[in-house]
């Protein structure tokens, strides 16, 4: 456990060195990964060339939602996103190799093919965050500042837990990688908008079933001093660390269960 961060670091450094072997391609990938994500936000900008408010949110407030959601997913994707490739290894039996090395299989799977270019998303989200903060008039308090900073971490943890849950499910259903995308990348697409535009059922679902609303929506509502939907208290965003902890516990149980179920391939 204690050695885990050092082991993880060792693995990702190896992968970073391997991608830097083709520097031109790496630079192109980093730039284009930043641009891919920028297109999401350009879509928001284009929408605001036609409208002045979206579901009661101004452009600056939308930018804040977007930046927090995108940072959280980007960091989670960078740190654990590779884990979705376990399905491939389970099918071919190459997962065996993880089990005989003196490093936890989880770390190896999370670091496998570590893609530094995924830094593009947090980089771009950070820029949008600066834009958002310059544009929105927030009545800053210490609590709100802490909430915003903490939400970036807890959001990352919640998305990372979802990546791990998705990967764990692949021990049961190989090839279901795309299924997990619907809650991770789909979750990012959802949480970049004010959730109330999707209707009460969706808000309930992402509060009580898949707690995506705690990634950024409730924290941002708290920061902006907006009331929460469904008659929930306006401080519900403060619960996001608790939600993140529960998600970590669940995903860790799921991963262990999946690992126990692994039987390698025949012949």
């Amino acid at each position: 456990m204690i050695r885990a961060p050092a082991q993880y670091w060792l693995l990702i450094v190896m992968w970073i060195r391997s991608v830097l072997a083709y520097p031109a391609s790496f630079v192109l990938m980093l730039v284009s990964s930043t641009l891919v994500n920028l297109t999401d936000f350009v879509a928001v900008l284009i929408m605001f060339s036609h409208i002045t408010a979206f579901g009661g949110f101004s452009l600056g407030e939308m930018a804040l939602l977007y930046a927090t959601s995108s940072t959280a997913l980007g960091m989670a994707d960078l740190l654990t996103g590779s884990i979705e490739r376990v399905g491939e290894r389970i099918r071919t039996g190459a997962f065996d190799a993880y089990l005989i090395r003196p490093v936890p299989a989880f770390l190896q799977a999370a670091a496998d093919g570590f893609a530094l270019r995924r830094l593009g998303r947090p980089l771009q989200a950070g820029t949008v965050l600066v834009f958002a903060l310059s544009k929105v008039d927030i009545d800053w308090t210490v609590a709100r500042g802490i909430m915003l900073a903490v939400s970036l971490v807890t959001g990352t943890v919640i998305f990372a837990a979802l990546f791990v849950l998705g990967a764990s499910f692949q021990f049961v259903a190989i090839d279901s990688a795309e299924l997990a995308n619907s809650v991770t990348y789909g979750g990012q697409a959802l949480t970049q908008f004010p959730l109330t535009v999707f209707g009460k059922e969706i808000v309930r679902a992402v509060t009580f079933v898949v707690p995506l609303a705690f990634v950024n929506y409730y924290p941002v509502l708290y920061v902006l001093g907006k009331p929460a939907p469904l008659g929930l208290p306006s401080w519900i965003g403060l619960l996001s660390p608790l939600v993140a902890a529960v998600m970590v516990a669940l995903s860790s149980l799921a991963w262990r269960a999946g690992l126990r179920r692994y039987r390698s391939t025949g012949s």
Partner: protein
Amino acid sequence: MGVYWAIAVRSFRRFSTYRIATVSGIFTNSVFGFILCGVYLTLWHERPGLGGYDVSDALTFVWLQQGLLMPVGIFGASTTSELGERVRSGAIAVDLYRPTQLLLWWLSVDLGRATFQLLARGGAPLLVGALVFDLKFPSSVALWPLVVLGLLLGIMVSFAIRYLVALSGFWITDSRGMEQLALVLSLFFAGTILPLVAFPGWLGVIARATPWAATMQVPIDIWLGRNPGGTGAALLFQFGWLLVLLLAGQLATTLATRKVVIQGG
């Protein structure tokens, strides 16, 4: 000709083996479909008639788009990235050895893939969407052949772009960076992030003139009957880009073949 048909059929079969992937893909498309519908409903509620689309057009656009992402090859066109991989690894030498045209070989592989994904995945999101929303379908039987032709041209234009991208590996060793860059352009200009009709002013004009517009926005507009210049002009636009890109692809193949050095051993 027979050999290319045989390749296409085998490629079709190969993709048809990924059943769970197909089902989970449809599920993901549907989730994204509902998210986008929520967004577009809000947008078109604030600005009715935006870009000449009514609400029903916008919602139909969402579900057609979700069905077409894979067949058109905006996402997950593993055929051309496999070609890029073969250029990088050098396995391309084997392909160049064969008494077939490289471009036609991979076009056949890609058409086999696209046909399977169109049949298995193309219509499913549309059905899901039609259960919940009031969607538009082509008004007369005579329109269906045009819709099919538009789709075929769209898939082939998309292939021609991806083929050029894969071949770029001959010059920059690793085509993955170029693939990413091409992904940005296609996400933006095919109408994936927002229908091109909603792009304002000059941005809209440029977007609608790019080859990426020919891959998805144009076929969807043929379905909706919303092409500004009419369906005939739209098909001509697609055909023009296809011709230009395939010629460029053939030229790149010739140049690359002259350049390639096979390592002995």
